[in-house]
């Protein structure tokens, strides 16, 4: 892998993007990659957009993904996926959760939540995987594990073996939640 793989994780505060990036970082480390993770926090608790950049490869210099250079866009929320779509490299993959979390301008009626996000994204991005991670996580036993469902979908797109992912999951998730999260990861990994 000469060039780093660029992963952009986007969502809304409280959706568990940070935990997902920690599991990813550990798996990448175990797989022997160089790694940089960059996150802007401070606004996370206040309902703002949350963006985490993860880059892995033989040698990674910049912690920032070059403009328009995202290989995998992992969107925990539909609108945030659309917002960051211009960052995706031509030919890149978007994995998008079908969940909608209306932002305040929508709540107050100053703006509308777009109706046709998935259709539009599919029309311009051949590699689109959309998934109702919330419902799948709920079936697995806890809707809060939606982040791990999404991580599972992304995992099969990355050059890291499944066993390494499962080990990383065990080290980053509290023991009492591990079974639910294992199921959530598997549901994502095997998602058709």
């Amino acid at each position: 892998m000469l060039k780093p793989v660029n992963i952009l994780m986007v969502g809304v505060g409280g959706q568990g993007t940070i935990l997902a990036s920690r599991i990813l970082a550990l798996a990448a480390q175990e797989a022997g990659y160089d790694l940089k993770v960059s996150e802007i926090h401070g606004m996370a608790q206040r309902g703002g957009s949350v963006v985490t950049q993860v880059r892995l490869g033989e040698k990674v210099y910049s912690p920032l993904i070059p403009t328009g250079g995202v290989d995998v866009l992992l969107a925990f929320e539909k609108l945030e996926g659309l917002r960051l779509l211009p960052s995706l490299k031509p030919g890149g993959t978007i994995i998008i959760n079908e969940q909608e979390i209306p932002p305040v301008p929508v709540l107050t009626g100053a703006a509308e939540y777009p109706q046709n996000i998935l259709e539009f994204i599919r029309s311009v991005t051949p590699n689109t995987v959309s998934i109702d991670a919330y419902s799948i996580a709920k079936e697995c036993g806890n809707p809060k594990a939606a982040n791990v469902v999404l991580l599972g979908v992304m995992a099969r797109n990355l050059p890291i073996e499944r066993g390494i992912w499962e080990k990383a999951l065990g080290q980053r998730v509290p023991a009492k939640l591990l079974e639910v999260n294992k199921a959530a990861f598997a549901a994502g990994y095997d998602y058709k």
Partner: protein
Amino acid sequence: MKELLSGNEAIARGAFESGVTVAAAYPGTPSTEILENFARYPGIYAEWAPNEKVAMEVGIGASMAGARTLVAMKHVGVNVAADPLLTFAYTGVNGGFVLVSADDPGMHSSQNEQDNRHYARFAKIPLLEPCDSQEARDMVGLALEISEQFDTPVMLRTTTRVAHSQSFVETGEPRKGTVRGYVKNAKKYLMVPAFARLRRAALEVRLAGLREYSEKSPLNFIEWRDKSVGVITSGISYQYVREALPDVSVLKLGMTNPLPEGLIRQFAASVSRLFVIEELEPFIEEQVKAMGLAVSGKELIPNTGELDAGIISGKFIEAGLKPAVQNTVVKPDLQDAPVVPGRPPVLCPGCPHRGIFYILKRLKLNVTGDIGCYTLSGLPPLEAMDCCICMGASIGAAHGMGKADPALAGRTVAVIGDSTFLHSGITGLLNMVYNKGAGTVIILDNSTTAMTGHQQHPGTGLSLMGETAPAVDLEALVRALGVKRVRVVDPLDLTETQKAVQEETEAGEPSVIIARRPCVLLTKVAEPAIMVQSEKCIGCKACIRLGCPAISMKGKTARVDPLACTGCGLCPQVCVEAALVKGGKTGA
């Protein structure tokens, strides 16, 4: 051991390993996690000071007493601490002293993006700039060695992308520290004019030594590649250069004050074209130009906002210095994309600040604001704040407005958080009393430093190291400053709050309202969620104007998200039809 650490975690680790035993700071993004992490190590002392100036002075005392010392703050914090810093540069140290300045290019969480490298040059002290977490850890130790060898405070300057990015760090074992003993030395530490003149001369001698050091320091090194283009760079910009221009020769400067002039001349002489690529101001570039060298920099690279590899790449392609990338894949056309509504940060559901700002807007008052979560009240739909400049500015600004136009005095309130008031609001209030102002100051007392992630302060009753501490009595404090009209309200009681604001603004003398209720993120008390009785709702949107993320309109009826609602009880108070009532099940 190899660990994935953020720049801030790495600085804390470096400080621990290098024998730092005293650290002080005031929280500020992107510096906060340095002290939070350092405080967890054994055998050290760390504290939150009420502001950066005090943190700096505590650090100066610790260094004079012989301890290796670290003081950390965000870039604008150095403005507050500049007074002691610039004279500490004269006295020099006893125990090694490192000041971490965490700058915020792009203003992710700041009111400006000043380039604090200028402070190091201004104060005539050494400046180190790490480019990743490994360097952040290593440079703390080096900074302390330089500090002790040259008898000077040292600035370690990070930026958001160093402070908050994680990369691998090879950590080591802590050094067995011996604290140098305190030795009285008035000629060194007592900066009266006669002694200060001596130290002023010593400062120049020290700088000459540091210039020599900078020439030979392994912190400054050349990576020879293609010599047709040579780039001088420092800090995070080094990473962007390596990625955007992998084939060019690079002079990487880890120590950027004083600059290694000889090394720069040697590098310049060996490359066909010389560039400086640095984020924000042309700090290195102007000095290289002053050396009489032909160099390009800011005519190519922007001096506003953050850099990244893409910007550098694009500018070099534009200038014909790098071949354009031939894209085989066509970029999709996003012109027909649906309009994306913004997702601005907002006050949390149940935030006690919301009640105050709702009333201030209703009363159409002028509101001078301050720094904290509550600054978000300036955004729609509350739009209840007129200005925000810096920590503590709200009170002086309100007083000044009243002096400029007495008609404004009864129409203007200053709004300031508890941590910010203790940081630098006290003197402003003292001034308002002394100079017979007539403003009203509202202290939003949520019992924490919320914006930066809930740090303790002198009003919370706990210290950074988790011990119980005396908590300041705010009412007694403001009374002692001479304020006669002091009252406490619950900001979630709109009737009481409105009455207090009306009476105090009309009083014609300085007054303080303490709006007291802990941050909703600290109190996990589960009140029943608010329910909407749909048959009563007339769709007037009065509740929507509170700007609560838990409330939305579903068609013509208000809807409350029971998972987000904390049951704070504010929206029932604005509902004229009594359609909103307590009693639902909260998800909190």
